[in-house]
């Protein structure tokens, strides 16, 4: 930057002295920047090609993220900020399409940030640790999942949800059907207690929580209008299978 300006300074010092040129340059510069910014924001909000990786801490989100974007296995610890990356993929018509993937930290304190990405998001990947299926963990998973399911953007844009049951290579891993069942039972309880909760202070009834699924019937994921799929993977051990699975899901 500095070098460039020094060059300009030397060559055009004569011209630059006149005030007319200064004004001209500034106007052109401002116009270009404004156009660029406008196009950028416009683009961002029209085609939602963003995919989020969500889930509790220590379920394998960051590992999955680096597997997808860089195709490498990295050692990770708890994330404190989002990872954002791009992924090139082929669509059905053999066209290349660029999608972006964001890995949102799963820690309770940072979880709220996922809702900031939702307006530009097309689909969600929710990662679950298949080995952690005690009642306490199911509750925590279901609570996070509930937050996602009742989000107004999730319902408005009819986003797709892929629930990845990770770590199937471990001995204690539970099958995806079992996980689905226990999540449904837990969500059944949560939707009752949440709708019975006292209303929120501030905006009066503007953001009313919707009752998930059908009333008087046990909660089933099939009751929701969104397409929700369950898959079993092991990000570490599956090699390319995991990537293919997700890419298939994304392109569909």
């Amino acid at each position, binding site marked *: 930057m500095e070098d460039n300006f020094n060059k300009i300074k030397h060559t055009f010092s004569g011209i630059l002295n006149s005030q007319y040129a200064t004004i001209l340059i500034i106007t052109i510069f401002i116009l270009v920047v404004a156009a660029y910014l406008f196009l950028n924001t416009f683009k961002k909000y029209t085609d939602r090609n963003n995919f989020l990786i969500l889930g509790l801490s220590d379920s394998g989100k960051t590992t999955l993220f680096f597997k997808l974007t860089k195709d490498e296995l990295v050692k990770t610890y*708890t994330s404190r900020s989002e990872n954002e990356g791009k992924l090139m993929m082929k669509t059905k018509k053999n066209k290349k399409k660029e999608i972006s993937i964001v890995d949102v930290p799963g820690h309770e304190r940072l979880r709220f940030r996922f809702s900031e990405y939702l307006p530009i998001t097309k689909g969600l990947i929710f990662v679950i640790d298949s080995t952690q299926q005690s009642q306490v963990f199911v509750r925590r998973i279901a609570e996070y999942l509930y937050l996602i399911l009742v989000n107004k953007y999730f319902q408005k844009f009819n986003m797709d949800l892929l629930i990845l049951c990770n770590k199937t290579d471990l001995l204690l891993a539970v099958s995806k059907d079992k996980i689905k069942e226990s999540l449904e039972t837990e969500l059944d309880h949560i939707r009752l207690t949440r709708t019975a909760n006292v209303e929120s202070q501030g905006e009066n009834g503007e953001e009313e929580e919707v009752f998930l699924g059908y009333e008087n019937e046990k909660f089933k994921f099939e009751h929701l209008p969104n397409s929700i799929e369950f898959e079993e993977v092991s990000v570490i051990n599956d090699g390319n299978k995991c990537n293919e699975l997700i890419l298939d899901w994304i392109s569909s």
Partner: protein
Amino acid sequence: MIDSCTILANGGKVLFEYKSGLNVPDLINDFVEFTLTNQSTNAKNSQINLKNNVLMYRQNNKFNYTIILSHQNIISIPYSNSLLAEFDRIVEVNIENLNQSILSSTFLNLVRKFEDTDLESKRNKAPRSFKETDKYLKSQLVSKESEEKRVMKGYSPKSKSDAEKSPKTAKKSTKQARTWSGDNMKDNNKSIKALDYSKDSTVDRNDEAIDANSLIDQNGIGKFNSEGLYEASELETPLMNSEESESSGFLSYFQNLTSQRVLKEEDLAPVLETLRNHLIDRNVAVDITGVLSESILKALVGKKIGTFSRVHTIVSTQMEQSIKKILTPSTATDVLRDINFVNKTENRPYSLVFVGVNGVGKSTNLSKVCFWLLQNKKKILVAACDTFRSGAVEQLRVHVRNLTSLCENLNLVGKVELFEKGYGKDSATIARDAISFAKNNEFDVVLVDTAGRMQDNEPLMRALAKLVTMNDPDKIVFVGEALVGNEAVDQLSKFNRALKDFSGLERPRQIDGIILTKFDTVDEKVGAALSMTYVTGKPVLFVGTGQTYTDLKKLNIKSIVCSLLGQ
């Protein structure tokens, strides 16, 4: 000595890891958990103790990573800070391609170097000469100061006359005047040039020699060097500034506008100060605003910012994120789900204890919570454990009577009863009896109302700790006024400490949640919500917004952030 060194990207990826042995404990996840949940960690202190280990860390905001060193807490490593700084410098240069093996050897070399110098300094520990001591420097300063006073203010007529008499002292006095008044130096370009040794321009000095004042100036320089008290760098900085201002105004302005800026402490400080005052205006406790702004300073210094981003917007978005992070509960706040869970799996009533200082509305909000639970078809027992204030039991009896008739009017399935033993009894025993009564008669929830107490009243705080230890309630709810300002921190921390100190348990109970009352009276001064959640790290379960039973609301984080940061 150093067990492990980890470079962790903020996104969670490990950039580099070194471990001195196989059985080195993996503490990084605990470290991240700690830094995220414990807001109260001092921003200045980059050292924390975890599981008998000391973790030293250094955050790099430019490239978003953290270097973490760990060693056992029984040894102390005096050079760890400088080691971190040095290693950070190396990593920053090579951030593009970090090679594990090369980096680990550099790290080990660095450690060896610091260890050697440390040993060396220990070995060569000899008494300092007098000239090295602080005392010597101080005495020098004092003598100079007094001299200066004399010369500048004409303190002593004798010295003045001396100055007139002998040219030698006259020289000295002029020199002194310039040396000690730094502001003068900036204005006087000539003297700056004369002092400029960094340029090493002999021509200039020759020119100066012709000047009539040159003798005095050069003496001044000589004095500076021989004293060795003032470093050259201090003199260089103003010179560089004057040079910069000479370059063409328009281009430098343009350059400032287009190139990426690195945020410095000086840029942030004024913005943070106004923001801090704004928060104090909104009734946030003063200490907390201090820690908040310090942590933001730490997170932003060294960050590169784009061309058109204003410092103010960056700081306020960072502040918004921090506040959201504090207010977002780290545990679930779904009380109803907890109650169902306990009732079903453990077959016992769920107990809530309401604690707080006098007159904040414990009984009132207890009855509001009671009404909400009644609407959800629960069987509730209210235990009157305020055996101290006259009328406390009667107050609860009226509430229970009202609620029962409300139930009948609204055709609610729920049921509420009062459990009381009159005045002057031990509240802990009453609570125990109430809970066992509730268990025998299949109640779902026990709400325990306690007497209000000031946080400094030790006998009463002991009684509270006893009540908690004896009954081990499912939730200890602190009831606090939204009107409270700086006092919030004191109240909560002392309640927590009393519960810890007087319990006699290895893992004492702490406050689990907060009810913020009188919230309708504060308008946008909602700072108490932030102060209270910050101190305890526990969520605000409900806010009380009025006098009727239905005036119990959930805290809306978005609206709190708006009222805190809005105009």
